[in-house]
């Protein structure tokens, strides 16, 4: 073919052209065949693979988080609701210069190092068209700033998401707890399916205890999205089932009264309806703003709360374990009467101290340092309670023995968790020889029985336990599991379990009368709060030592550092004839019961003296 031919020979040229055309056609056919084979391979051989891939590309299952159930008090006052919180997010794919965009955003709104770190971590795991949150809780001003600069910030979005809000902040923080962002550990325990799309979970308190009901059921929607992540069409939708609204026994006004009565003091108030076990008030001070946690608490804020010597995060009402002091004396009296060791007439000589037979150590009565002598030469049960005579109960404790005390006092719920529907409840300690051997590996010493007899030594109880015990006294032996939850979605909850203690009714009356004398008698330890009280209450004061007082040392309150001052306690139920409320108050380092009893008076007034219109 390369042979040269004469100048312009059309025939020969056509021959060459024909041959070349044939070659060209063959090349065209074979190359088209290759292309065709390629399409055959993609469309027929690998059809299944690509079809699956295209489905994944196209249809996206989007979780629809349910609206968290609201929490109300017994009168319908909203205690926890949900409010839109604005979140600044970035869609990676739509941002051309991420570093530049971040820098520009930082100039507009404050973005902390933790925010950035969080963002970078999430950025790794999200698909480029998914928004990655950068800043939560945008203020109105910040939102306005971002809106104004929107055109310069492609790929930056501001979305609203429902976040828990506690309208009363600090007031109910310990009563209902709070939600917070789901952490790594929680995400492993939670039902992954149901919590897709949910960012918060109940961390403590009611919010945690009733998490399942409050959270609701996640919904889904199948959406078609484009590569920009924009939802083009909703293919199918399963609406989420919102969490159940929950009504608690708590009473807003009572809670507020108790909170304000505690004021700046560290302490706790628990009020229970003795007939139902419903918790009417649960206050622990100092509190904290639960909204901090719902919005994602900053490291600085958290350290501040965690490291404060006042321990605001510590729920004193259920976690605080204090020596109950003299508040256990009515229960001790019931044990004495029930065991037949004493009658209402039995008297004990009271020189102001007590001594174990064959032992020289004197166990002092609290009155000794005030009067230099005992309450009276001979003290009987009513006076022993009304004036809080230690000597009487030293003697009773010795005769009852520690295990006898354990036997009787456990019917009041001491030494074990009350079973309240909240988290972090502590069991306290109701000591026994078994307990000491198990817990400390030591035998029980007789002197320790005397301390236990006046609620000191190893004995510990939470304010919640004391309130429950007071309710048992009020109801003449009916022990109820206390409950915060009153109804779910309008459905009343079944009444709690009741265990009734077998005891002589006359004994109850005797002890009730003695408890009435605490306030309503001229020498009662809490007679001060009885002034102008239009109703009668049964109560008991208590003082518990924070540090042991050395033998023969004279205890001078003013000289003891504030943190070492005695705790003041007070328990009461009212009205005396037909109790509708049982209260336990503790004031940490209050010095004595006189710090606690006025708080209880205010709480009782609030509950008993309110006009019917107040509900």
């Amino acid at each position, binding site marked *: 073919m390369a042979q040269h031919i004469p100048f312009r020979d059309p025939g020969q040229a056509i021959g060459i052209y024909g041959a*070349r*055309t044939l070659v060209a056609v063959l090349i065209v056919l074979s190359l088209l065949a290759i292309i065709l084979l390629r399409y055959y391979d993609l469309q027929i051989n690998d059809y299944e693979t690509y079809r699956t891939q295209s489905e994944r590309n196209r249809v996206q299952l989007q979780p629809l988080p349910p609206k968290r159930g609201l929490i109300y008090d017994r009168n319908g006052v909203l205690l926890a609701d949900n409010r839109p919180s604005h979140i600044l997010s970035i869609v990676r794919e739509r941002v051309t210069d991420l570093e530049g965009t971040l820098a520009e955003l930082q100039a507009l709104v404050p973005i902390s190092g933790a925010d950035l770190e969080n963002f970078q971590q999430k950025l790794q795991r999200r698909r480029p068209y998914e928004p990655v949150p950068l800043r939560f809780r945008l203020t109105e001003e910040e939102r306005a700033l971002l809106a104004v600069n929107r055109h310069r910030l492609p790929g930056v979005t501001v979305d609203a998401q429902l976040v828990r809000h506690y309208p009363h902040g600090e007031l109910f923080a310990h009563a209902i707890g709070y939600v917070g962002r789901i952490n790594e550990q929680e995400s492993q325990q939670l039902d992954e399916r149901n919590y897709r799309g949910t960012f918060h979970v109940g961390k403590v308190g009611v919010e945690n205890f009733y998490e399942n009901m409050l959270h609701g059921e996640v919904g889904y929607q199948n959406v078609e999205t484009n590569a920009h992540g924009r939802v083009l069409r909703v293919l199918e939708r399963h609406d989420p089932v919102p969490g159940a609204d929950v009504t608690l026994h708590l009473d807003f006004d009572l809670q507020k009264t108790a909170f304000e009565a505690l004021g700046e003091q560290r302490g706790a108030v628990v009020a229970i309806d003795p007939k139902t076990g419903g918790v009417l008030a649960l206050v622990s001070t100092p509190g904290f703003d639960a909204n901090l946690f719902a919005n994602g608490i900053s490291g600085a804020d958290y350290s501040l709360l965690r490291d404060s010597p006042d321990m605001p995060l510590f729920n004193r009402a259920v976690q605080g374990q204090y020596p109950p002091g003299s508040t256990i004396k009515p229960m001790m009296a019931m044990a004495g009467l029930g065991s037949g060791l004493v009658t209402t007439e039995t008297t004990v000589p009271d020189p102001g101290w007590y001594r174990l037979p064959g032992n020289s150590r004197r166990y002092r009565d609290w009155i000794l340092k005030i009067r230099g002598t005992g309450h009276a030469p001979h003290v009987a049960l009513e006076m022993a309670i009304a004036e809080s005579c230690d000597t009487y109960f030293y003697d009773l404790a010795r005769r009852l023995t520690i295990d006898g005390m354990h036997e009787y006092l456990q019917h009041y719920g001491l030494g074990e968790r009350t079973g309240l529907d909240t988290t972090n409840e502590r069991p306290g300690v109701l000591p026994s020889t078994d307990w000491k051997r198990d817990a400390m590996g030591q035998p029980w010493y007789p002197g320790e029985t005397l301390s236990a007899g006046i609620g000191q030594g190893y004995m510990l109880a939470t304010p919640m336990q004391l309130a429950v015990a007071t309710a048992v006294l009020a109801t003449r032996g009916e022990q109820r599991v206390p409950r915060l939850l009153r109804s779910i979605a309008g459905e009343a909850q079944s009444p709690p379990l009741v265990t009734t203690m077998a005891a002589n009714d006359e004994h109850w009356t005797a002890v009730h009368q003695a408890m009435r004398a605490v306030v309503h008698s001229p020498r009662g330890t809490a007679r001060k709060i009885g002034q102008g009280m239009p109703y009668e209450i049964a109560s008991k004061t208590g003082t518990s030592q924070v540090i042991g007082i050395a033998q023969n040392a004279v205890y001078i309150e003013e000289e003891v550092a504030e943190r070492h001052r005695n705790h003041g306690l007070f328990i009461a139920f009212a009205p005396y004839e037909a109790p509708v409320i049982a209260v336990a108050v503790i004031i940490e380092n209050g010095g004595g019961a006189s710090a606690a009893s006025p708080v209880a008076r205010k709480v009782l007034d609030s509950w008993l003296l309110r006009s019917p219109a107040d509900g």
Partner: protein
Amino acid sequence: MGDYVRQLPEASADLARRPSLALRLHIDVPLLLLLLMLTCFGLIVLYSASGTQLGAVVRQGQYFVVGYVAMIVAAQIDLQRYQRWAPWFYLLGVGLLLAVMFVGVGAKGAQRWLDIGGFRFQPSEILKLVMPLAVAWYLASRALPPRFSSVAACLALIALPSALILSQPDLGTALLIAASGLFVVFMAGLSWRYIGGVVVAVFLSAWPAWIYVLKDYQKQRILTLLNPESDKLGAGWNIIQSKTAIGSGGWEGKGWLNGTQSQLDFLPESHTDFIIAVLAEEFGLRGVLALMGIYLLIILRGFWIGFTASTIFGRMVAGSLTLTFFVYVFVNMGMVAGLLPVVGVPLPLVSAGGTSVVTLMAGFGLLMAASTEQRGLLH
């Protein structure tokens, strides 16, 4: 091919017996019918690929009107006149390319356009037609098969505008234009020894070219072709998405307007360079076969026109234009399916865009001029 060849001359002969409108308008009816089929098919696919925007279809339809007018106008001119004008066309084209170099306007780092009174156009498009004309003009007056000196002169003719386009930079177009000139030389009977030598030279120059000639983005395209998974969301995205679109179409396709990949914007450039993926997804392999069938018939008709052309100039021009058209089809279908690197080559007469439609249709006008010349001689 056999059936086809038997039928078409009869058809044209039929038309020729009457003093037909087609002949008077210098229209090659089989070619026109095939182009109309392709146009309709293309617009149907475009409607879907543009996201069911009628506006895009109307605009493309207007381009086609311009294109068909350009074709008919180009068909009216005598082929010999093209041959006479070819060197002047060539000089004009090179002049315009030089103008682009100095006063051109650019976009995305490339300077390809000339702006004349608000009308923007790419001189390199003109070269797509001028190049085969110029090389055919040169060889038509030389002994064939071409001697070494003729081949060297042709290479110089080809190299000048190609280099200018390459410097814009526009590698894809430069290669296409160089190819259109080389096809003329090939059709003229270039010795297989030279062809073999070029093939060897290309292989030998691949290594230096990789190091010195190719730009980073061009290398990236080639690397991405070899392993699209390596850059899933970057350069590999287009190929992965287009393969997914094609593959998920299967034999039957998902149905018109139901191509989820393309409808949902997963597929980039779905209405321009990657439109074949939309077609493959919605019409399946059946649709691909149909489109390929139309293309093949157009190509065969083009070769037939060249084969029956009465002058060497006409044969070479027809052969080159047909092969260039095929290269468009091959490169585009190959790159979208992940066989070839992604270069900016549209699917001829289907991809949205006015310039390529007008150029291609004018090219078919040249083919029709060649066809007319042959029939004109017969009658």
